[in-house]
């Protein structure tokens, strides 16, 4: 709190336009690798558990049990207990609930069980939610609620799974890639859903800018209702934009007209994202970070102030801070920014078509972890790259966004999350496009905890990092 006041005061004194903890206003305010984070930058990944099969995400139940829940792509959820043991029997097994076979489509490496989220009152109601690619629905994204039997807290049997299933939402997926994935309750108790643009490349549906489709969006719904799948939070930006009304032509201001969007979906929270496979809330401030996977040239991390919906993050007009499609060196072409800029971005090996190869600071697919507020880190959003194994940190130093590479590892990160103490957790898998041997046969992945290097306990297994 003190920090925030201090920042505001400085900004006011300087009369500057660069307000801390806001999305950049200009392209040169978007942070790139090479910055300097305030606080600790010497981090290590400490192994918590191994032997996980294509782990795709991780979270906790917030019920004081200390359990960590890891989603495995095939459709299972594994529990890692307080002592780091992986319980043998899965917490949930979606491969076993349908007599005709698995309920989960894993045919393409981006498909499978994406994530699990526990209701804020899970300890009382036993509700948890999963998002997965459905096999019976040809890869459509299913968001389903199940209810734990208090007598069997660590295993939801197939019968129990079927009995308690409540389908919240089905998101039609035209293609097998860019399915989004993350679902998570915000500090406001609403369920946020990361929904990809539907796939192929270049957003053939123009989904990102189309308010009539749930694709290419962050969605926000209120699941606290029993009579229907969910309610629309009244403060969603388009909650009423498409409601039926009589037409009035006169006496209406420009701004009022602009709020009438007869085809917009009320579930939309923000739009113009490509594949928000991962996003996270800062446990301290409630601010949101979205790791939006880029196409061929730039990866981006979006900062969104807590509760600040309605933003257009640009896709497919923009890739990170550049106009899309890129046809050459952006420095040599005109581009008017569409929408809100990301807080940070980093390039692929080729930063634009025809650019010389440069593997320094580069990657190919950003996978968000979470915000660290411990070990000397203060509001540092951590994200890893699926290709280069780099871990980056993003934070605001009170003046501007700083983005810094912290370590480079030999791992392919898939996602991150928190344990009950808000330590940032990370999972890595060993699956990749062409040699995917199937979610149960790829070499297993692991679960890691991000720590300040000085806090690593003796004897811990630490991820190898590049010299």
């Amino acid at each position, binding site marked *: 709190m003190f920090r925030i006041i201090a920042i505001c005061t400085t900004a006011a004194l300087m009369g500057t336009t660069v307000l801390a903890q806001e999305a950049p206003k200009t392209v040169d305010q978007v942070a790139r690798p090479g910055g300097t984070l305030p606080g600790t930058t010497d981090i290590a990944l400490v192994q918590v558990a191994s032997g996980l099969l294509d782990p795709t995400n991780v979270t906790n139940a917030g019920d004081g049990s200390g359990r960590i829940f890891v989603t495995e792509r095939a459709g299972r959820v594994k529990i890692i207990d307080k002592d780091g043991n992986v319980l043998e029997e899965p917490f949930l097994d979606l491969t076993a609930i349908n007599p005709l076979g698995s309920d989960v489509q894993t045919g393409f490496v981006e498909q499978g069980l994406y994530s699990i989220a526990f209701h804020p009152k899970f300890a009382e109601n036993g509700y948890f939610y999963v998002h997965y690619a459905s096999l019976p629905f040809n890869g459509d994204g299913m968001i389903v609620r199940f209810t734990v039997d208090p007598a069997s807290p660590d295993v939801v049997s197939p019968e129990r799974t079927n009995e308690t299933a409540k389908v919240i939402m089905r998101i039609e997926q035209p293609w097998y890639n860019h399915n989004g994935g993350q679902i998570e309750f915000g500090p406001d108790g609403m369920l946020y859903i990361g929904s990809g643009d539907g796939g192929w490349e270049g957003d053939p549906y123009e989904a990102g800018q189309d308010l009539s489709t749930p694709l290419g969006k962050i969605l926000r719904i209120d699941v606290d209702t029993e009579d229907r799948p969910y309610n629309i939070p009244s403060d969603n930006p388009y909650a009423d934009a498409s409601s039926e009304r009589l037409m009035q032509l006169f006496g209406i201001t420009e701004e009022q007209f602009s709020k009438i969007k007869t085809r917009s979906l009320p579930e939309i929270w923000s739009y113009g994202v490509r594949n928000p496979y991962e996003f996270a809330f800062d446990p301290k401030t409630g601010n949101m970070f979205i790791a939006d996977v880029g196409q061929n040239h730039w990866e981006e991390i979006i900062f969104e102030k807590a509760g600040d919906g309605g933003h257009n993050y640009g896709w497919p007009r923009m890739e990170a801070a550049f106009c899309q499609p890129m046809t050459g060196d952006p420095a040599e072409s005109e581009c008017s920014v569409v929408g809100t800029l990301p807080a940070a971005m980093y390039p692929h090996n080729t930063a634009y078509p025809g650019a010389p190869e440069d593997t320094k600071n580069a990657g190919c697919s950003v996978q968000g972890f979470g915000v660290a507020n411990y070990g000397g880190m203060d509001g540092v959003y951590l994200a890893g790259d699926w290709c280069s194994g780099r871990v980056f940190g993003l934070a605001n130093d009170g003046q501007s966004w700083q983005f810094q590479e912290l370590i480079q590892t030999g791992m392919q990160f898939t996602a991150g999350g928190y344990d009950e103490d808000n330590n940032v957790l990370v999972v890595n898998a060993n699956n990749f496009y062409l*040699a995917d041997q199937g979610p149960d046969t790829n070499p297993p992945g692991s679960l890691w905890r991000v720590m300040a290097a000085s806090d690593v306990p003796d004897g811990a297994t630490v991820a190898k990092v590049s010299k």
Partner: protein
Amino acid sequence: MYFSRYLIPSIVAASMATLSAGVAIAESHTTTVEKTGDVPADVEFENGKVVFRAALDDSPLKFDLKPDQTLTPQVEEFYKTGLNPYSGDPEAIKAGNKSYQKLCQSCHLKDGGGRIGPSLNDNKWEGSRTHTQVGRFEIIYGGGAGAMQAFGRRVEQDEILKIMAFIDTLRPEK
């Protein structure tokens, strides 16, 4: 160009599979043996064998990725010389091409132009050791950063040497 015709029978050397150069290093002095021929000066030898290191952090490379691996004479030869016996061998290059198209092209592209992984068809190596056959073997067998997985988990070392022979043909200057 280095061609070999092996007359010795195939040896399945289980003990070789656990060869760990690093342990030896810790116990004795490492000497960098200058050799004539194609072996770059920065390939280290120890007790007549190449010292292999992990591409990521230079730690000793452990050959334990596949529990029951078969070491062909070509692999044994490579351990001793640091030179790929399959270099320039048309049969091996053909086989290597096939494996490359299956395992590698998703990231390095068909022609080695590079995308997720760096280009393999220019005259530049990104890694500190990948300019040598030994360095290339190290990163393919034991993995590098991020998506460059340890292919020693998936294929035999002999196949890796064949893939390397193929990769060599992608470069303008071999």
